[in-house]
């Protein structure tokens, strides 16, 4: 039996998506086949719309459909605080925490030589003109080896410009028991301990 070519094409396209294996792609294709035409058209439409309307903010490289992103366009955000993150998704995560009212800078990646990502592949250069004295830059890349390496790289790059640089805290996640914490995190949580007595 030969499979219909449009089915084969759909399975192939779906299995290109990250995290979708060939079996899932096949199941997804059959699932989609069973859905009403409107739903498929809406899904396809949302893909095309997103691709057409979304682009990166020319200032902070966050995702936006406007000239400037919502954060950069908001004059009430603290203008002297720039939080450097790896990906646009991190902006969403931080915004959800509700604790941050400054600006962002999205690098679109982390240094990873073995994956061919050097400093030139990140949105690093456009960060420099945003920096002036009085500004604090928070390095909020992940706490993986690459996130840490990227933070250190950025620190060395911008420190000479006279800005204040800080790094998000390492430590125990809220709600965690020590016995489930790993040793490295534990060491960091101890050395970064904060005084609570007067």
């Amino acid at each position, binding site marked *: 039996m030969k499979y219909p070519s449009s089915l084969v094409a759909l399975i192939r396209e779906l299995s290109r998506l*990250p*995290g979708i294996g060939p079996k899932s792609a096949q199941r997804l294709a059959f699932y989609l086949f069973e859905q009403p035409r409107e739903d498929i058209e809406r899904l396809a439409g949302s893909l095309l719309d997103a691709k057409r309307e979304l682009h990166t903010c020319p200032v902070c490289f966050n995702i936006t459909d406007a000239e400037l992103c919502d954060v950069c366009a908001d004059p009430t955000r603290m203008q002297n605080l720039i939080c450097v993150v790896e990906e646009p998704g991190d902006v969403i995560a931080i915004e959800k925490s509700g604790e941050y009212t400054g600006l962002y800078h999205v690098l679109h990646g982390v*240094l*990873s*030589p*073995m*994956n*061919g*990502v*050097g*400093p030139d592949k990140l949105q690093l250069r456009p960060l420099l003109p945003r920096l002036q004295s009085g500004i604090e830059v928070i390095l909020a890349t992940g706490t*993986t*080896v*690459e996130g*840490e*390496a990227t933070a*250190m*790289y950025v620190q*060395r790059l911008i420190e000479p410009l006279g800005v204040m640089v800080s790094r998000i805290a390492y430590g125990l996640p809220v709600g965690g028991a020590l016995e*489930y*914490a*790993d*040793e*490295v*995190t534990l060491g960091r949580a101890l050395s970064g301990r904060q005084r609570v007595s007067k």
Partner: protein
Amino acid sequence: MKSRSTNRSGIVMRRKVTPAGDIIVTLLTPQGKIKAVARGGVRGQQASRLNLFHHVGVQLYQTPQADLATVQQSILEGALPRLSEPERHPYAHLLSELADALFQEGEFSEQAFDLYAGSLRGVSRHPDPEWVALVMSYKLLALAGFAPRTRHCARCGAADPSHPDPLGGQLLCGACSNQPPHPPERLEFLREVPRRSVRALMDAPLMAEQRPAVWRSLERFVTVQIGSVQSWRSLVGGDVVGA
């Protein structure tokens, strides 16, 4: 009773997070290279342990149906936090990428494990990480059976060549090369690196200005023998290699 669980101890050579939040790691262990997945690992404490370059003990579970073993538990056996420093990070990547290319799954080799582990320790601690990386790259290659020809010209076979081989990263005789010969120290290093002990090589580092040409040889040799390696691009200075 055949158990489907095994305990292994190894170093994380590669790490990838899938959109579903699984962590896929490649470990080099004394029992060979292993690829395994920690399902949902990015949300739990596995995320910390299964970090790049960490030495971890893992419990793996393998079913005949699944192609990848599952990491059920992990403990940290050693971490080298300084590998994140900008002057060390790219070398740790290079050595890991080389080791990943050189050693295959199912190939027992305590030597390979020890050499790779030692090379990361060296890059992490030594005041001259570049030199550690250069020496250990050649040592990893030699262990895997890829030692450059240095006794005879790589093109015509003439004895005792001393000129660079700009295409293959080995040595050429004066007749086959259009480049000036290597200076004596550099030539000695290139000739002796597979045979000398790591200790002896570490004790006699080449001057900084001698190294770019060695990196270039290494890069050519690896590219021809093993294939393309991403980490070259990020080596300090960026343009020392493959210029």
